[in-house]
């Protein structure tokens, strides 16, 4: 993040021009790669690896927004995503005649709205706490939600949950087709990424980071710090809800297992693994997580594959508290030092 801020010329011309100027070749290469990715891979790599990375990355991005900018580590981001998924099933209908069967253009916005509202409520409850207590209270929210959906039959269909959930046809485009679904996920993830990147420099985002660094001074300056934090929860909730919508469409079903403790913690692992200092972190974390989740068993086989996953996570976090992003930064600084000293005289 720091480097992005520094490298961007601070001029007052339009946002678009600034955006174009800040485009480096590796951005272009990355975007191009993401766009042609499904065309060079098969269904498995497109959906299971590609789309899943984007979806989990989007949900972890919402945590990155809260933790990175707001200093609030929330464990309930997947719960919010799960609520959005459940609401899509409840409002839009699922197989077996369950749900209300509203048309998708009503059901989907309603689902996102309900989840965002719930995230705001979680924010209201948790913003008065700090550090580990925020983690505890959001974990409690997540667990309460898990047991509620497990035991509530009237709304959430208890243990069985909902199946047969498929994305609707949008403008005649079949979202169920692997490539279309991937591009849809890419669009949502790209939107979330740009939003969070934009926030890092927008007044609200700057205020949020200031609240993180020194709440007392911000309060003395007349900022309503609680309101900023609640707003961050609402915004992050919205992102998580979008991710939840995609997740439920990818899996085609949702049940209490989808919002249990293990997936809850996975989101935290993804965010920490990638790094919470820049919005690209969660996506890197998600990619590593998805690859390990799919292939660790082939690396080692037998019953010990979870040990391998755990060890790799441990090593990354041990050597770089900032996740993969931190490793990358360390590596870059080391590389840069030699040529820079002699050729360039960049101030950093």
């Amino acid at each position, binding site marked *: 993040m720091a480097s992005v801020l520094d490298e961007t010329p601070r001029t007052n011309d339009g946002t678009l021009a600034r955006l174009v100027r800040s485009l480096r070749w590796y951005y272009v290469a990355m975007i191009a790669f993401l766009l042609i990715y499904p065309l060079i891979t098969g269904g498995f790599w497109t959906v299971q690896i590609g789309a899943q990375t984007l979806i989990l990355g989007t949900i972890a991005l919402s945590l990155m927004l809260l933790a990175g900018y707001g200093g609030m580590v929330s464990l309930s981001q997947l719960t919010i995503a799960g609520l959005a998924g459940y609401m899509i099933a409840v409002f839009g209908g699922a197989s077996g005649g369950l749900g209300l069967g509203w048309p998708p253009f009503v059901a989907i916005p309603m689902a996102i709205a309900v989840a965002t509202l719930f995230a705001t409520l979680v924010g209201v409850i948790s913003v008065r706490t700090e550090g580990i207590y925020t983690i505890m209270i959001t974990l409690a929210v997540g667990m309460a939600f898990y047991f509620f959906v497990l035991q509530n039959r009237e709304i959430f269909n208890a243990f*069985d949950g909902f199946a047969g959930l498929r994305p609707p046809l949008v403008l005649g485009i079949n979202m169920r087709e692997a490539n279309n679904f991937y591009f849809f996920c890419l669009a949502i993830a790209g939107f979330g990424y740009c939003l969070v990147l934009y926030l890092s420099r927008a007044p609200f985002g700057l205020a949020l980071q200031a609240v993180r660094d020194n709440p007392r001074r911000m309060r003395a300056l007349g900022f309503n710090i609680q309101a900023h934090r609640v707003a961050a929860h609402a915004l992050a909730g919205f992102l998580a809800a979008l991710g939840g919508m995609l997740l439920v469409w990818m*899996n085609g079903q949702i049940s209490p297992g989808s919002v249990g403790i293990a997936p809850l913690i996975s989101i935290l692992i993804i965010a920490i693994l990638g790094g919470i200092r820049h919005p690209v972190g969660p996506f890197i974390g998600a990619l590593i997580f998805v690859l390990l989740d*799919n292939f660790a*068993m082939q690396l080692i086989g037998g*019953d010990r594959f979870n040990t391998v996953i755990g060890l790799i996570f441990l090593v990354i976090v041990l050597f770089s508290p900032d996740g993969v992003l931190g490793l990358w930064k360390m590596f870059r600084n080391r590389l840069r030092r030699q040529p820079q000293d002699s050729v360039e005289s960049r101030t950093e």
Partner: protein
Amino acid sequence: MIHKPLATTAASALALAMTIGTTTAHADEPIRIGVLATLEGVFAASGQDGMRGFDMAVDRFDGEVAGREIQVYRASSDASPDSALSAARRLVENDEVDILIGPLSGSEGIAVKNYAHEQPQVTFLNGSSAAQETTLDNPAENFFRFSTEGVQWQAGLGTYVYEEKGYERVAILAEDYSFPYAQIMGFMTEFCDLGGTVAEKMFVPLETRDYSSVIARMPQDIDAIYTVMGGSDILNFLEQYQQMGGEAPLIGGSIAVDQTILSAEGPDRDYLIGTPTSGPLADDWDDPEFVAWQERYQEMFPDGLGSPGLFAHAYYVNTLAALTALEEVGGELGDGHEALRDALQNLELDTPTGVVQVDHNRQAIADIFITEVSSDGEGGLYNRVVGVVEGVNQTLGFPEEEFLANGFAARDNPPVEECQ
């Protein structure tokens, strides 16, 4: 220079991506079999036993079938349909298996069956999942289940308790999800036809710890309580029921009084003596083939369970079916597995628990064992075989239309009012 690693990563990802999808099966190449079981979470022990069953079947064929080597790809789920689907996708779309065996639990089975519809080029065989809908509701042409399901597992139990035990009026206490619904259907169908009555059906959420309200509501004029619960739930209920002075005998669902419950610590176990239940296998079945299979299990897995469990049995039977049919067709997988599927359809499979065939929905018709908890005289308990019901099909002997007219097993189906 700085950006080189990214470029290299992209390039290697590209290269990797291009190598995928270039392999196709030929006659002298290995046969690729994927196996999916639950090796994470609360059912991890069951999943391991399922894998043992699979390994036993592969071992019986010495790792090759019709001259082609068997290449095994394993995948794990955490018992949630999401993870089962994800693991199945990896096996089918990345490892390109010809045959997939699994999954372990009911809702996973429905998810994998739905996925089978999307992947007609692969032949799926069930693991140990036992939901009724998997093969009865919108069955997939390429999904075979040589193991029996929850409704079938209770075949004969209603008759046994009514006629042999003399229970005429029962209360039902069950966990609130699909597997108990299916079991209740299997039980009530026979029990109510004979004239037995059900005083009340009570459902508790999974992982309930406090049963006092349920016990307080328990009707007094009953001969027995039919409990369709498992694991810690049945143990908690039993303990609290005894503390509150309950005396009604129990009838068990298929997982209510398995070996893990019978060997659990506590003074209350003797209460279970005489509890009848039924299921797809019984530990002390003295058929020579079963005993041989049991011994082979103990020999192969010294640190496994004392005797192969329900999960090992189901995975074994399904894998055995796949390999036997493959052998029959000489490993021929052309024409979209047409020959293999014909062979599976017409297979009369010899298993340790009798001959198994599949019906037109590719669902097993097999024997069911009725057992009763007995003392082994040394302080231990075991399930003693008291009867075998031969050739139980998915509609419990009723014509399919008549059976389906009653709907699928659900919370309120069969309704209690029709049995009072």
